[in-house]
């Protein structure tokens, strides 16, 4: 039975960074992931990573941009830490081998990004996430003696002792169906976001909110769950992402009348306003009939010199060609806002600690909250690395004063029985998992999108509750143990439904418009009543329990937000 000082669940950027940091601090470490680490969704992060590293730039400027981008819902102490530590993190990445593109002088090069007052986004073409993820994995291979990797293991349950401390997890080896208890002094959740709750989404099929739901189920509060980022530039048909780097390199947005409509909505920053602002502007244009017939807006990248596009935006050249049949160097590509990121997650402090002792969270699964109501582009990679590292270090230190816990095998038998029960489900004429999942995604994308109102949210909640009742009877075709993806899909569906309900309840609760949450029935920001976080806690099988948490301020007072 594996036992480690620190168990990390999820092996994207946050998880791998946490593993390396914890091992570096002397802890014994296991990193466990339901996919091979380089398949993690961090691989899809395209545009870059922010840091105030240039001589003329300052971390205060980066922090202010982030605070403003968050619509003043971000916790300023956490934002200060993230922005202050960003430059050293970039240099660390550079030293371990990330192939950041350079300026003419051979120094690290930068590109412009949305909502930023300086060009401070460091990048590797438009495969920045992939480059960093693969380089971190190189380091995991290098440090294989200190970090045990469990690749293609699916976590089913977080374990707690009688005092409520998190003491490990139960996971299933996807390759042979074997269940195992992983004892650990601390557990770091780094299992990413929940984009699959929406359809379409830019997120990968694996982004099913596992960690958010697992933490929620053992009593950890979620925070800012109503804050769902719609990315301004996604392909209409399949939701694939066109990087913000395109606009950073100079691309423009046009409506069907040929108007560069961002002049109206953000006269100073134009296409490089915050994502919530640009997405809302696009949706308004589309709703008011100035979009193209397929409900889209045109993104014109032909303005960027072709050589530069081919060198620095290569991935979206491929995506345009292969998935939309468009040569983006020659003609505009049609895009629309699409679900991209969840600002909310498991509530943590600046060291990644959740209110459950021994349980940490970092990356998209967590809510520190550095993104508040709206995340700036190229701040998510930073978030994963800074708080991944801090969680890893903190958990390693914590391990020194704690004895290795032990979970009884009876617990393992319980989980095994639960899974067997799912596998045994026969087709009794109920709905298929895929049908429930599709209805969930379409419901969320319809009612919990860029524009929301009480009526739509109530409808969404009703549907989610119904789907929750339907899910436990959905049939399982695969009765085997080797790569039984069917049974994992059923468990993931349960996670997604929990996350969806938390999102809807939080969105219903916030009766104002802030950041990514725009309520057409409450169209103004209301600092007097709503300048606080909304937390969501599990309440048995009933409707989740709502709570609040104060926003932590340091030096920036809320102001009117214009770009």
């Amino acid at each position, binding site marked *: 039975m594996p036992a480690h000082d620190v168990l990390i669940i999820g092996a994207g950027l946050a998880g791998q960074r946490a593993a390396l940091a914890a091992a570096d601090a002397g802890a014994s470490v296991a990193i466990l992931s339901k996919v091979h680490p380089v398949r993690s969704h961090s*691989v899809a992060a395209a545009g870059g990573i922010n840091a105030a590293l240039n001589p003329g730039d300052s971390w205060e400027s980066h922090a202010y941009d982030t605070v403003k981008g968050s619509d003043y819902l971000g916790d300023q102490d956490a934002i200060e830490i993230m922005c202050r530590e960003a430059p050293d993190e970039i*240099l660390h990445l550079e030293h371990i081998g990330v192939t950041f593109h350079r300026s003419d002088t051979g120094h690290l090069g930068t590109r412009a990004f949305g909502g930023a007052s300086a060009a401070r986004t460091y990048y590797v073409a438009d495969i920045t996430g992939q480059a960093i993820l693969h380089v971190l994995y190189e380091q995991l291979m290098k440090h294989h003696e200190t970090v045990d990797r469990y690749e293609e293991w699916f976590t089913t349950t977080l374990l707690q002792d009688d005092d409520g401390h998190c003491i490990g997890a139960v996971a299933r080896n996807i390759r042979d169906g074997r269940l195992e208890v992983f004892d650990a002094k601390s557990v770091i959740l780094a299992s990413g976001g929940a984009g699959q709750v929406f359809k379409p989404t830019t997120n990968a099929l694996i982004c099913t909110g596992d960690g958010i739901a697992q933490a929620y189920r053992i009593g950890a509060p979620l925070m800012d769950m109503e804050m769902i980022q719609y990315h301004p530039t996604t392909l209409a048909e399949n939701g694939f992402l066109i990087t913000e780097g395109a606009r950073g390199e100079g691309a423009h947005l046009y409506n069907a009348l040929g108007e560069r409509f961002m002049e109206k909505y953000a006269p100073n920053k134009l296409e490089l306003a915050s994502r919530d602002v640009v997405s809302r502007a696009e949706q308004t244009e589309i709703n008011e009939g100035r979009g193209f017939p397929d409900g889209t807006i045109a993104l014109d990248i032909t303005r960027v010199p072709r050589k530069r596009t081919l060198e620095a935006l*290569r991935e979206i050249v491929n995506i345009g060609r292969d998935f939309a049949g468009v040569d983006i160097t020659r003609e505009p590509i049609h895009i629309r806002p699409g679900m991209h990121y969840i600002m909310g997650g498991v509530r943590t402090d600046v060291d990644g600690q959740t209110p459950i002792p021994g349980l940490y969270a970092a990356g998209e699964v967590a809510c520190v909250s550095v993104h508040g109501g709206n995340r700036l582009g190229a701040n998510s990679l930073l978030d994963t690395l800074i708080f991944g590292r801090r969680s890893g270090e903190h958990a390693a230190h914590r391990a020194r004063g704690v004895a290795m816990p032990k979970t009884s095998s009876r617990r393992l038998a319980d989980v095994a029985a639960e899974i067997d029960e799912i596998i045994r489900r026969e087709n009794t004429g109920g709905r298929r998992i895929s049908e429930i999942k599709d209805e969930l995604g379409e419901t969320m994308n319809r009612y919990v999108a860029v524009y929301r109102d009480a009526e739509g949210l109530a409808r969404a909640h009703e549907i989610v509750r119904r789907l929750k009742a339907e899910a436990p009877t959905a049939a399982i*075709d695969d009765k085997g143990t080797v*790569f039984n993806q069917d049974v994992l899909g059923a468990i993931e569906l349960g996670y997604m439904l929990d996350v969806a309900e938390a999102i809807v309840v939080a969105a219903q609760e916030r009766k104002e418009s802030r950041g990514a949450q725009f309520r057409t029935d409450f169209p103004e920001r209301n600092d007097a009543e709503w300048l606080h976080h909304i937390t969501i806690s599990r309440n048995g099988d009933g409707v989740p329990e709502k709570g609040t948490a104060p926003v932590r301020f340091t030096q920036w007072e809320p102001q009117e937000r214009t770009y």
Partner: protein
Amino acid sequence: MAEYTLKLRRYNPESGEAPFWEEFQIELEPHRSVLEGILKVKAEIDGSVGIRCSCRAAICGSCGVRINGRAGLACHTHLGHAADSGVHADGRTITVEPMGNMPILKDLIVDMDAVHWKKIQRVTPWLINKEPVPEREYIVPHENMVDVTQTMACIQCGACVSDCLSMEVDPLFVGPAASARAYRFVGDPRDAEQYERVKDLAEDRHGIYDCTHCFNCIEACPKGVAPMSQIMRLRRVAGADHGIVDRNNGHRHEQAFVTLVKEGGLLHEAELLPRSYGGDSWFGKFHPAAGQELLSSLPVITTALLRGKVTPKGVLAPHKLPKDALAAVQAITEKVERRRPRNELNLYITGYDDSPGAGDGDVHPLAADGDAMTSAPGPNPHRPTSASESESA
């Protein structure tokens, strides 16, 4: 909407039965991907079909499979195109089976660890820093970073490994993906051990000289990494930059090709082996090493003679080119050898320009096609193969 028959290779290790083909009928638009087709099968017909997948957009590298016998990503292959190509080419039937050269775990899922990742680990896949590590970033040319980005673009999908012919013959061959990974460090000016890395891979009996230039990896790669080109670049760094004459006679073998073509305009096959083993000149065949190797190659030579591949007359009197043709060949050779810096065939750097035909005329033809979707041509199917042939030694 169009109707497709997905003919999937099924294998359930728990059943005790041999692998078998199973057909599923689906309806989808032709521009949807094969992966979407398989996911539809899973969603609506049989949830037990096994395939790894995640991003759906050719970024995560999970869904490497063989479609109509050729490796690629399922998410990166349009149904319509797949149905129009391959053995059936009936506009309807698409065969999908697991990748080659790797053990099958279940249905379309192979054991990447057993082959692919083992080989990646073989090439010391992490940066060995040049000392001293600077306080800030290493100051290195932009071009170098853009250069290694081509190999950083590898998503570890295993398609090249699947279709590598050399690996089929020699399972110990380090292979295309790991070689490309090696170039990612060899081409990185921050790495301290360029010489050690290329020396290691040149001297290894299953190293870079084990590649037979079949182009399958370039065809299979969905990301334009062009692993075979990276192998050629490793050879150039080893042979030309570091003067490594390997014990596999790989470098001399390549040199012999070049010299023979330069001198005679055509390949003189009978001279090739002696020169490769003994030394790159007419006297090479008298070197003791050449004699020894020729002796051990005797069965091959005998077969070649018996089958008429080599004739005694051809050995003694090679084919000759007309004078003007020879001069033309030699002019090409000179032009290429004069070129500084040498053309590295990097898709991110060479050849792209806003106006086609601009520059010095040395634009490599590969540039025109870029890293087109070879496993699955989209609306603008390109095939870099013809262009890449100049890579051949």
